[in-house]
Structure formats: structure tokens, C-alpha cells
């Protein structure tokens, strides 16, 4: 385990700011989608990233895929800064699986062309060897080779997501960014895809960044969890410690609002105020204080500093160093 000290993927103080124009003649205002985020992914681990819509999860995924450049901070792959690597080299190491298999496959291309696109772009092999690779990867994701000539519209949601996984894996990447890979699928298909992702990870030693709002899925698959709120990681811990004893009040509220299929328990009260704050005008102090059931005066004025300890990382005045 020589790579233990070099994380396969690392974000160092990554910030992404957009300027948003409000109204026709409004002055552009900065929107900080990702705010000073630092995370490390060790080889073979699954980092679950959770948070409500608008918290910056998807922006973070785009930065990791090189689709967006961070406004400041660094992304390192195997200890090497992302800016120093060319786009093709990066694409070989990090691949995405998107949420909606109805939108992630080009409807005008057949399955073979879709899966072989990475090989063509990277000029890997010739048409014969590509055919062979596509056959192999189809077998790995559990699709018969005869789907090669079909089109996405002829397939079910689960099959399409398998195609998307095949496309992501055909170049044998090390890191896969899974952005809500099962939330558009039916329940009976979700579990197949989750099982497949889990199998593939073990077989190919993949590292996942798994973005989801489904905490049951995160709990099942992830080894570590990062909780994001308004662009910041407010808590990061191993999946056991987070799900057994979440420390940040926001993580706690998120966990409480999960509806497990246990009849008779009723619907939980999260004690969260309902409105997610406007990211253009985030609250002062701790961003979470207007919705926090245990907010103190300090929280309104001062931003908590992160605490790093054995359990992970937490950013809350209740756990100030």
C-alpha cells in the first residue's frame, strides 16, 4: 500500500464562484457554489457526498471531471495538479456516470457507437479491437452483445444505465464520479445497478465519488461520507460513525428525515426550517444557523472553524476546537 499517503484524488481549498445576473438590468452578483472544499479520496474507497439540491454537489462533480475550472484552489490526481495534465489524460483516469440515463445517451447513436466513443476519441486500437472491447465491457455490465446495434430508445432505464456504466468503464479509469446514478430508475432496477457498481468496484479496484440524496443508498455503498451545505463540507466521517452518531445538527436532520420502510413509525419532524437559503445571499456566520435547532448567538456572527479529529472533520460551533 505505497499509495496510502498519496490520495488518488484530492481537492485543496477548491472554490467556485459564478456571477449571476438578477433580472434584466440587475448588477451581477457572485454566487459561491463551492466554498473552500478540501477532500481526499484514497484508492478503492467510496466517498458519499450528500446534501440538498443547490448545495454545490453537482458543481463539485463538474470540477472533478474537468468540465469546470475552479475559481481558486487545486485539484490533484495522484498528487499531480489537474491543470498540469491534459484533458485526454484526465479523461482516462476520471469518468462520470450521470443521473438520467434518458439524457446521458445520444439518441441518434447506436449502443456500439456510444460505448466505443471514448476509444475513438483516444485513438485506442482499431475497429476490430474496439468491437472486442465493447463486447467484453457489455458482458461485464450484464448486457447481451446483440444490443450493440440497438438504439437507446429501444432499451429500458436500467439497461441504459448499464450502457452508461460501460461507456464510463471502457477505458479502465481509476475514479468514477457517480452523480445520482440510480435516482431516475425504478426501485427494482436501482438495486441491480447498485449491486453492479459495487461488484465493479471490487473487481477493478475503482474509487467512487458517489453523489446522492438517497441516504439509504449512501449508507449501503459508501465507506466515508461528506455532508455538504451551501457549498461547504460541514461534516466528514466514516459511514459507520456518521450514520450511528452524526455530530453536525444538519447531518442529524438529514438522517432524521430519511423515511425507512418501517410502518408505524410515522413521519419524522426534522425541526428544520423549511427554506433552503438563497446561495446568492448566504446567511452570516454559520450558514446553517437560521435552520439550526441548536443555534447559539455565536453562530449568527461567526463562522465556525473546522475541527479535524479521529472521527473526521466537523464545522460547527458545538464542536469548536
Amino acid at each position, binding site marked *: 500500500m505505497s499509495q496510502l499517503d498519496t490520495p488518488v484524488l484530492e481537492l485543496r481549498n477548491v472554490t467556485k464562484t459564478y456571477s449571476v445576473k438578477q433580472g434584466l438590468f440587475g448588477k451581477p452578483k457572485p454566487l459561491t457554489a463551492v466554498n473552500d472544499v478540501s477532500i481526499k479520496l484514497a484508492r478503492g474507497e467510496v466517498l458519499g457526498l450528500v446534501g440538498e439540491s443547490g448545495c454545490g454537489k453537482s458543481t463539485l462533480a*463538474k470540477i472533478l*471531471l*474537468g*468540465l469546470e475550472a475552479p475559481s481558486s484552489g487545486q485539484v490533484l490526481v495522484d498528487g499531480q495538479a489537474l491543470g498540469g495534465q491534459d*484533458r*485526454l489524460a*484526465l*479523461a*482516462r483516469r*476520471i*469518468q*462520470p456516470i*450521470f*443521473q*438520467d440515463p434518458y*439524457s*446521458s*445517451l*445520444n*439518441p*441518434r*447513436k447506436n449502443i456500439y457507437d*456510444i460505448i466505443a*466513443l*471514448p476509444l475513438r*476519441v*483516444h485513438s485506442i486500437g482499431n475497429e476490430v479491437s474496439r468491437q472486442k472491447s465493447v463486447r467484453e465491457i457489455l458482458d461485464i455490465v450484464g448486457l*447481451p452483445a*446483440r*444490443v450493440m446495434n*440497438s*438504439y437507446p*430508445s*429501444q*432499451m*429500458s432505464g436500467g*439497461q441504459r444505465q448499464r450502457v*452508461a456504466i460501460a*461507456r464510463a468503464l471502457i477505458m479502465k479509469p481509476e475514479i468514477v464520479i457517480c452523480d445520482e446514478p440510480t435516482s431516475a430508475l425504478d426501485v427494482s432496477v436501482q438495486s441491480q445497478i447498485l449491486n453492479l457498481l459495487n461488484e465493479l468496484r471490487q473487481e477493478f479496484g475503482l474509487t467512487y465519488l458517489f453523489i446522492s440524496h438517497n441516504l439509504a443508498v449512501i449508507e449501503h455503498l459508501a465507506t466515508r461520507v461528506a455532508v455538504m451545505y451551501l457549498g461547504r463540507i460541514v461534516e466528514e466521517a466514516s459511514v459507520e460513525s456518521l450514520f450511528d452518531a452524526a455530530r453536525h445538527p444538519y447531518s442529524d436532520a438529514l438522517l432524521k428525515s430519511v423515511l425507512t420502510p418501517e410502518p408505524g413509525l410515522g413521519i419524522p419532524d426534522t425541526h428544520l426550517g423549511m427554506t433552503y437559503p438563497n446561495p446568492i445571499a448566504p446567511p452570516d456566520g454559520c450558514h446553517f444557523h437560521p435552520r439550526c435547532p441548536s443555534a447559539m448567538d455565536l453562530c449568527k456572527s461567526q463562522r465556525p472553524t473546522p475541527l479535524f479529529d479521529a472521527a473526521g472533520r466537523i464545522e460547527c460551533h458545538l464542536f469548536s476546537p
Partner: protein
Amino acid sequence: MTLATSANSVDPLLQDIIGPTPGQQLRRRFFGHRGLMIGASVLGLLLVIAVLAPVVAPHDPYAQDLMARMKPPVFLGGTWENILGTDHLGRDYLSRLIYGARVSLLIGFVAALISGTIGTAMGVAAGYFGGRVDMVVTFLINVRLAMPVVLVALAVVAILGGSLQVVIGVLGLLLWDRFAVVMRASTLQVRGREYVAAAQAIGASTPRILLSEIMPNIMNNLIVVITLEMAHAILLEATLSFLGLGVQPPTPSWGLMVSEGKNMMLFEPWLVLIPGTVLFVVVLAINLMGDGLRDVTAPENRS
């Protein structure tokens, strides 16, 4: 598992690839659409006639016979020698109509091709790159929309003189606005799809993404606009020729024929009615085809 597969080996419910390919579906919808079929047949017939004009036309369209001027068409008491009669110079009207189809279709097609290339390039660039590019293109579209097409065309033709090439060039350079608007909107829509993000994440180059991810998915809209702009160009050519600023005589052009017939309109109305009707039918056919193509290629947009 084993039980299920063995029990259902020939079960009609069991299937994993659903339905026909997009191509098969398109074909089925294409041939099932009445308006589209009518429009396409009329246009196809006309195209064949135009291409085979030297074979099909009964007479030389330029051959004058001053002894046989303004012979009425056969249904108004004329002879089968000149089925649609002759014009004021004694030229066979049917032959002139047939050769006129060549001019009209040529102008419609080439003008739509030129403006389509310009408009698509601008629209796709604006939609895909956004930002400054989009601002510039939007500005150009607005400038173009502020210019009255007929007046500008008249002015240009008046300066350069009317000829087939000039008319095609002027129309081609003026009719790109709808292409740009439609292509920009379609590109914006497609750009947001995840397969474009997936191609970017694969490392595909921008030209590759534009050509193989974006273009195939906006092609249907492009084809619809091409047909509509063809009709537009054909009408404009007729207008210009009617005003004497389009194709120059003695070239047979439908607009010119209407123009030449208008002096006699009160005495021999068929001189205007025949080319007018043909023009009407062609434009109607193209529009039917355009509407049909829109229905067929985007069934989800049908009301």
C-alpha cells in the same frame, strides 16, 4: 431464476429490446403522414420534371412564333399542339412552365443551402459557446430582422443588375435569420443534455462534439427550416422577377411569366393564373412537407 427462464423461453411477454429502431419508427411515421406524403409526391414529381425538362417539354421554351401568339390553352378551346397555349411572343406556355420549374427549384434550393450554412454556423456557435459569441450573433440576427428583405434585395439587384446568380446570392445572404434563430434554440436545448457532458468528460474535441453529438440531434429542426426557407426563396424570386429585378428575360421564370402576363390580364387571365397556380401549388407542397417533417421527426411536440 432457472425456473423462470425455462418456463418462459417462448413467452410472448418476454423481451428485452423494446420496439423498433428510431429509423424504423421514423419510416413508419413518415409514410403514415398524409400531408407529408402529398407534399413530397408533388415536389418529387416537379423535381423529376425539372430535371428532365429537355425531354419532357414539348417545345423549345425560347422558340418564338409571332404568328401563333396567345393561343388559348386546350381547356379554353385551344389545340393539343400547345396544351397550355402560347404567350405574347408565341412561345409554348407549358414548356416555359417546365423550364421555369428548373429556375424556381434551383433558386429555392441553392439559396436555402447558402443561408442554411450561414445561419446554422451562427446559430450553433451561439447556442454552444454562449457568452460573447451569443451576444454578437443575437445582435446580428436583430440587425438582419430589422432589414426589409424585399427592399434590400431590390436595392442590391438594382445596383448589381438582375441575373440568376445575383438573385441566388442575394437571397442566400438574406434568408439566414430563421436558421440562426432555430438552430440557436435547438443547440441550447441539446447542449444541456448529459450526453454532451459525457462526451466532454471523455475528452472529445469541440468540433467532434458539435458534429457527432449536437448536429445529429438538431438535424430534424434544420430540415424543417430548409423546406420552409426554400418556399420563401421561391416566392421572393417570383416577386423580384415580377418587379423586373430578378431573373432577366428571356429566361423562363414563373415570376417573370406572371409579370409578362399582367398586361393582358383583363383579356387573357389564364396567362397570370397558370403560373400563379403552379407557384401556389409548389409553395403549398413544400410547406406541407415542412409541417409534416416537423410532426414526423418530433412526435412529442405534436398537439
